[in-house]
């Protein structure tokens, strides 16, 4: 009996479903709605796992090709893929950290003047994963990892949006919404860099006309597909026919990269569908609780909510931060870094794009370019610090690029090392 209970409740899908169930009951929903919401959360998490294993397989093939081709470890900077890799071993700690993080966010928003409620659940999930991995790497128990990780996650969820708020007021012209996306250190930095070009603030990116085809990258699956196609073909050609054919089995060695690249994109699409499904009910409960119990709270929302205020800046930021990422790749090759961090298009689009919206709000197009370029450099170089830890824990071939994950992670890691 006991083993049954432990097995049941150490399953992350069950825990999340249970949480959704409690949330739905607390909101006094009808029985059918409660059941639908609970089941969908459970199904969503399982879909997430299926997407994760699809991505992992494609990523492992890429690793082999890249490593054999270039004799260096290539790491795709995609938090979805990195979380996918961690999911099978650390799913339990990660989901509990995520839930405690939500709860602690409410506590910090309630007792401090930082009234931000962080609603970008996908990002909280990836952050929970980063924190769990770092704490677990020092051999702490699950309980310690969950409590420590959850408190840190709750704190940054309430605190970091506050840093961006002065710029958010400029961008949106109000104080009702905050930004909720874990590159907030980078976004506020981009805003500050924009201040260097204060004089030219009027020369906004929105006065520039860009070729329409660039908006192709706005669909994140397109960005992912194009980059993965390039990466797979370059690596396969460099690794040569023999090695590629070994992996490809019965498939022709030049067809294999094509299928694998799109398999990666397909896995990502499945993964995000799962995330969307399992977060829907939990987020709804989170909204209901925060509106009821935390007066004056401000929702911190995903970055596309600032895109309407400066859509052209987003494209500028994508190009500028991706350029920074490619310069980073060249630099890491030339100076023989142990790993090369390969920028992922969708990260540069969302994160670099938002940095540009911030830079643009204070320094026009000059601020947008400079701000997102610096953000791009941070996205490229910061992950090299923590990669050895993640690599040792089996997270190979992909890592977490986001600035806040890495800055917080590096601080946490140095702190834990002191006590170790």
């Amino acid at each position: 009996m006991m083993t049954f209970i432990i097995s049941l409740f150490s399953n992350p899908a069950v825990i999340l479903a249970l949480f959704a169930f409690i949330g739905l009951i607390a909101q006094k929903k009808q029985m059918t709605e409660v059941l639908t919401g609970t089941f969908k959360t459970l199904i969503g998490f399982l879909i997430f796992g299926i997407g994760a294993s699809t991505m992992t397989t494609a990523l492992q093939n890429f690793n082999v090709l890249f490593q054999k081709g270039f004799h260096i470890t290539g790491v795709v900077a995609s938090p979805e893929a990195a979380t996918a890799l961690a999911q099978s071993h650390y799913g339990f700690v990660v989901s509990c950290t995520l839930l405690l993080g939500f709860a602690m966010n409410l506590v910090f928003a309630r007792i401090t003047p930082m009234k931000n409620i962080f609603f970008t659940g996908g990002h909280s999930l990836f952050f929970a994963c980063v924190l769990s991995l770092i704490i677990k790497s020092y051999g702490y128990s699950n309980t310690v990892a969950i409590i420590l990780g959850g408190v840190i996650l709750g704190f940054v969820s309430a605190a970091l949006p506050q840093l961006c708020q002065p710029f958010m007021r400029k961008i949106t012209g109000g104080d009702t919404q905050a930004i909720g996306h874990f590159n907030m250190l980078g976004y506020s930095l981009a805003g500050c860099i924009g201040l260097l070009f204060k004089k030219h603030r009027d020369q906004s990116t929105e006065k520039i006309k860009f070729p329409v085809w660039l908006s192709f990258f706005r669909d994140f699956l397109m960005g992912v597909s194009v980059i993965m196609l390039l990466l797979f073909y370059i690596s396969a050609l460099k690794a040569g026919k023999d090695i590629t054919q070994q992996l490809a089995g019965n498939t022709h060695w030049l067809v294999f990269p094509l299928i694998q690249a799109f398999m990666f994109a397909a896995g990502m699409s499945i993964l995000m569908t799962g995330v969307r499904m399992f977060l829907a009910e939990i987020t709804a409960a989170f909204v209901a609780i925060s509106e009821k119990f935390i007066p004056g709270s401000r929702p911190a929302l995903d970055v596309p909510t600032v895109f309407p205020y400066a859509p052209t800046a987003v494209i500028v930021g994508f190009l500028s931060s991706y350029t920074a990422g490619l310069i980073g790749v060249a630099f890491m090759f030339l100076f023989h870094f142990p790993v090369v961090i390969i920028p992922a298009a969708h990260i540069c689009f969302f994160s670099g794009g938002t940095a540009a919206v911030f830079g643009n709000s204070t320094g026009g197009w000059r601020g947008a370019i400079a701000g997102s370029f610096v953000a791009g450099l941070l996205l490229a170089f910061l992950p090299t610090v923590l990669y050895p830890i993640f690599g040792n824990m089996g997270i190979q071939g992909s890592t977490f690029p986001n600035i806040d994950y890495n800055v917080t992670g590096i601080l946490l890691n140095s702190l834990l090392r002191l006590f170790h």
Partner: protein
Amino acid sequence: MHKALVACRAGVGSSLMLKIKVNEVIREHNLPIQVEHSSLDGIPGFDGDLLITLVDVAQELSKQGVKQQIIGIKNIVDKNEIYEKLNEFLN
């Protein structure tokens, strides 16, 4: 009863909040609209008559000749804006 789809680029962060807010508005004003949620990839298979998304996405979609009517919201936590635009659609 109208059927609406709330969608955004990746279909996770912003549209989830938008869906919650749209649902609140619908409940408060008793509007005859039923809401579903997905990413932009869900649009081709959607059989309802209304799409709700962010303004910049709405502009792109309208260029692509989507068959449904499209509402673009600028500030997704602004319930007045959502109400006005839903009302406009209903009339």
